[in-house]
C-alpha cells in the first residue's frame, strides 16, 4: 500500500470541488473525484469516477473501485451539492426531494461508506459542506437551507459515533463564492448577503481550502463535530 494519502472529493467537475481536487493533487495527495458527468481535467494523481452521489448502487460501486485500486481512504470532502432558489410557496415538492437527496442523502451515503473503509486503519477525516445561509436563515432558499441544516446535524451526531474509530467529522460553511451555484442570484441579493458578514467580501476557493487543510491535518485529531463559517457569520 502506498504511503500517499488518498483523498476523495465529491462534485469535482467544476467550482470549489475542482479547485480542491487540484489543491490536494498539488499537496501530494492521490485524489479521487466524482460527478455525474465526465471529469474536466486530467492528472496522473487524479482519478475521476462518474457517479450520482445519491444513487446508492453507484456509490457502493465507487467505493468498491476505491478499495481495489487504493486499499485505503484518508480523507473525504463531501463537496457535491445543489441549490434551489425559490420562495417556499413556489417550490415543487420534487425539487425539495432532489435537494435533500443530493445534499443530505449524498453526504450520508459517502460518509457511511468512507467510514467503513477508514475504521480499519483507525484514521479518517471527513469534511462536510454547509453554508452561511443556515445561520443567516436566508429567505428564498428554504429547501437548500433545510438540507444544509440537516448536514450540520448529521455532522455533529456522526462525529460522536465515529470518534471511537479515530475518524473526525467537521463542516465548513462558506459565504457566497463566485461559482455556478450563485451565478443565477441577482447582484443586489449577493451584496445584501455580504453586508451581513463581519468581513465584507465574497469568499474565494482558497478560503475554503484553508479550512479544509486545518480539518485534514493530523494534528487536528482532537477537533470533531465542529462547524466553521467563513466571513465571521
Amino acid at each position, binding site marked *: 500500500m502506498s504511503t500517499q494519502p488518498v483523498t476523495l472529493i465529491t462534485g469535482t467537475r467544476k467550482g470549489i470541488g475542482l479547485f480542491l481536487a487540484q489543491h490536494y493533487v498539488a499537496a501530494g495527495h492521490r485524489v479521487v473525484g466524482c460527478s455525474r458527468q465526465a471529469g474536466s481535467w486530467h492528472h496522473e494523481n487524479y482519478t475521476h469516477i462518474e457517479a450520482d452521489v445519491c444513487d446508492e448502487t453507484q456509490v457502493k460501486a465507487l467505493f468498491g473501485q476505491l478499495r481495489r485500486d487504493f486499499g485505503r481512504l484518508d480523507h473525504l470532502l463531501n463537496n457535491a451539492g445543489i441549490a434551489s432558489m425559490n420562495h417556499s410557496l413556489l417550490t415543487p415538492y420534487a425539487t425539495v426531494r432532489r435537494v435533500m437527496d443530493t445534499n443530505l442523502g449524498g453526504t450520508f451515503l459517502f460518509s457511511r461508506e468512507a467510514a*467503513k473503509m477508514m475504521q480499519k486503519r483507525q484514521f479518517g477525516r471527513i469534511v462536510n459542506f454547509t453554508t452561511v445561509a443556515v445561520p443567516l436563515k436566508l429567505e428564498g432558499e428554504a429547501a437548500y437551507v433545510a438540507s444544509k441544516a440537516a448536514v450540520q446535524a448529521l455532522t455533529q451526531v456522526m462525529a460522536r459515533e465515529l470518534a471511537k474509530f479515530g475518524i473526525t467529522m467537521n463542516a465548513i460553511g462558506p459565504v457566497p463564492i463566485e461559482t455556478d451555484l450563485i451565478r443565477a442570484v441577482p447582484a443586489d441579493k449577493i451584496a445584501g448577503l455580504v453586508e451581513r458578514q463581519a468581513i465584507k467580501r465574497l469568499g474565494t476557493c482558497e478560503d475554503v481550502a484553508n479550512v479544509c487543510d486545518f480539518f485534514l491535518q493530523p494534528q487536528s485529531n482532537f477537533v470533531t463535530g465542529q462547524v466553521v463559517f467563513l466571513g465571521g457569520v
Partner: protein
Amino acid sequence: MNLAELTQLIIDTTRSVLEEQAVETDEVLSADTRLFGDQGLLDSLALVSLVIAVEQGIEEQFGVSIELADDKALSQKNSPYRSIGTLAAYATEQFEAKRRAS
C-alpha cells in the same frame, strides 16, 4: 453462496474481530454463538466492525455487494445480529433478495 459457507465466513470473521478487540473467549464458535444482546460476545462497537467486515468478506469471497444494515439492529428479539446463525440467515436473505431484484 450457501448458508454453510456464510456461517463459516462469519465464524472466521468473528474470530478475527475478537482478536483485534483483544476479547478472550473459551467458547467454540458456531451458528449458536450469541453475538449481541444477552450474553453476546460483542459490544456495539465490535458489532459494527463485525458487520462491516462480513459485508466486505462476502464481496471479496463471492463477488456480491450486499448490505447488512438493518433498522432492527438493536432489538433484543428481532435483531438479525443476535447470533452467528441469525446473521448468516439474514445475509442469505439479503443475497436472495438482491438476486431476485437483478
